């Protein structure tokens, strides 16, 4: 990872930690939470201050109005992702997976996941999903990891928009990210899709 990316990740982590506590946070506390070398940390704090997202008061950090908004976004992201991974993982692992992905999942996918999260609705199996309307993938239930990896490398994963363009006796043909993919019936049964009316 490049330095600028590491910095961004650290910055976002700082915002999240301060944001979660909703008040001033001691620098020392942040240092116990984020395990990077001190120069990195101080660089990140510096750049956050420059961007007007935080104020530094003595030994502690407080969020500015702008910083609070930003932090809320990040915390939201984190919550959505954590909810996502909690289903199959232990709490700690869900937290960690969310931790990492919040920096990386694209904004579009993130917004979609958020939408799914706030709707609090379960998706239907792709095989039962209506024709010619866009839905969001909410989950992939397959326990076959190799299949899972293949689906992901083809761009089929939670949060992505998907449209069923044909139904055939042996499966469905979907459009996802401008590509047409044919999925076996049994695979289509394992993919959950939610109609969010977009």
């Amino acid at each position, binding site marked *: *990872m490049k330095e600028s990316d590491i910095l961004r990740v650290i910055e976002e982590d700082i915002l999240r930690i301060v944001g979660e506590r909703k008040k001033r946070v001691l620098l020392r506390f942040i240092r116990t939470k984020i395990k990077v070398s001190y120069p990195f940390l101080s660089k990140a704090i510096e750049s956050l201050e420059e961007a007007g997202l935080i104020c530094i008061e003595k030994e502690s950090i407080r969020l500015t109005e702008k910083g609070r908004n930003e932090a809320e976004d990040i915390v939201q992201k984190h919550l959505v992702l954590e909810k996502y991974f909690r289903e199959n993982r232990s709490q700690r692992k869900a937290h960690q997976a969310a931790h*990492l992905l919040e920096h*990386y999942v*694209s904004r579009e996918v993130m917004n979609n996941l958020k939408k799914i999260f706030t709707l609090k609705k379960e998706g239907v199996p792709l095989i039962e999903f209506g024709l010619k309307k866009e839905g969001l993938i909410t989950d992939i239930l397959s326990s076959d*990891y190799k299949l899972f990896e*293949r689906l*992901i490398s083809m761009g089929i994963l939670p949060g992505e928009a998907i449209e069923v363009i044909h139904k055939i006796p042996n*499966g469905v043909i979907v459009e996802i990210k401008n590509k047409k993919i044919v999925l076996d019936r049994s695979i289509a049964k394992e993919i959950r899709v939610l109609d969010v009316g977009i």
Partner: protein
Amino acid sequence: MKNFKILLIGQPNVGKSSLLNALVGPKVVVSNYPGTTVEITQAEKVFDDKKVEFVDTPGIYSISDRSEEEKVTEKALFQEEVDRAIIIADASSLERGLYLVLQILEAEIPAVIALNFVEEAQKKGIKIDSQNLENILNIPVIPINPLTGKGISDLIDSLLRTKEEAEVFRVEYDDHVEKAINEISCLIKATSIPKRFIAIRVLEGDEDFYGYLEDERIIEEVKRSLTEHPRVAEDISITRYGTASFIAEKVTQIVSVEAEREGLGERIDSVLLHNIWGPFTTGLFLLAIFGILLYLGNLMQDFLMGLTESLLSTFGTAEHSIIVMILVQGLTGVAAGISIALPYVFLFYLFMGLLEDIGLLSRFIVNAERFLKKLGLPGKAFIPLALGLGCTVPAIRATRVLMSEKEQFRTASFFVFVPCSSRIAIIMGIVGFYGGIRLSFYVLATSLVAGLVWAFVVKKVVHIKMERLLLELPPYRRPLIKNVFAKSWIRMQDFVYIVIPLLALGGIAYAIFDTLRLTEVLVKPLAPITAWLGLPKLTAIPLTFGFLQKDLTGAMLLSVLGNEISSALTPLQIYTFGVAATIGIPCVIALGMLVAEFGFKRALFLVGISIGYGVLFAGLAWRIISVLF
């Protein structure tokens, strides 16, 4: 001169073959819809003072051990000294290409990204900032268009530029994953492959990489801890994909374009993916193709046989000398080989290549899957099965398009019933000529029934894990004709150099057996079988020695029974002979190919079973018919 080895890697339909064509010319090219070949194609060219060897790999979505294609690519990447990798990415779905890129970077193979279909993406309103992508990943990114040649020289330049040790982008995983990577890294034997990459592959459950761990005990330990944390592999791929789409989003600019009106492709798809019209048009297409091949094949055979005969007539009267016999049978073999090679192999692959490059082949596979699944076969099996109507030998090889060896072997077992052109010649030429065309259709129908019975019994008894349908349907494109030609040529060369000499040898072997009167040795021991078949004892000769060279079966029958077959055999006997000669692994060359693909044991097993099944079925069939009529 320095030898430089460069690997071309990319997803299916991303334009790898066109790029190789643009790089080295049409000499050697193989294009690739998900899996038409798992062979690796190579081509060499000299640039300045460097001899560069390009290696084309099968299209893959990711590095893993899931399919044969992926295994082959993995081998090409790690078992040979690779200087550079060109990763071809589709600009309109960048994040999917980046997934592969990130894996290659994890393997620390110096890579260059060739960004293809840039114009096509722009039409869809997708603009990629390749400079920015280059900055993020810290590897060269070059937009190309193999059809116009744009960017090709830039690509070559950046490939040959001296390697500067640059810190490339690396995916950072979750804390617990990173910890596990570090732990496993310490248990790895010394090797040229980066330890981090091996550790990740191990965590992803790639069994090919277990071998790099220090010893059995550690492998067991790692396996056990993997079953305790089954989601590690998932975490890794999600993070990798997340990183890929994060980068893609950063460098992609979406501008809205006018909504595309329903294009020609959509209209074609609404027919080809239709419940009824889809399979119908697919069947019609294949029938038409096969009709053309059969017609041309016969034409070629007649012409070549005529040529052989006129050549032999110049030898005059020394008809029964062993030399002439050997020559006759040898040349018959060559003639048969050429008349199979040109239409059935070359033209077949030409048609398949066109269908594939246009984008029709994957639609056909989807339609074929509906019916083949009922027989316990995967959709792609229709490619080798259709080729099997031409010649069983290349068809057995073509089973390599299938995902697993089990699927391959099961499909190969169906060549017992799919009559090749030589067997069709027996059915039409012997059975049809001496017993009437109706009789030849009965023979075909019987082998169809035998095949269906076989399919359902095998499906019931042997359960294999079938590859589920998961296939990208590429957009329709104009094919690059020279590409298709080159590919068909390669396929035919294989056949010409191996199969034709063997066909000639088979003929010669028969000539020797025959003149030494060794053929008759078999008549007596095989008498119970001919009795079961209700055939004259002497028919054992064409039935068994046909195995050496199937195209000689007819001539052998004539030579043992005399020219008046219609009086020597009843119509029912002609029918039985046809069935017995059709069902089974047709010839010794097909057996050889089976051995090459599946090993001695399984090849002999299949041949043994198929002979038993064929004889049993033929004997039952004529008894049932004689009771009914």
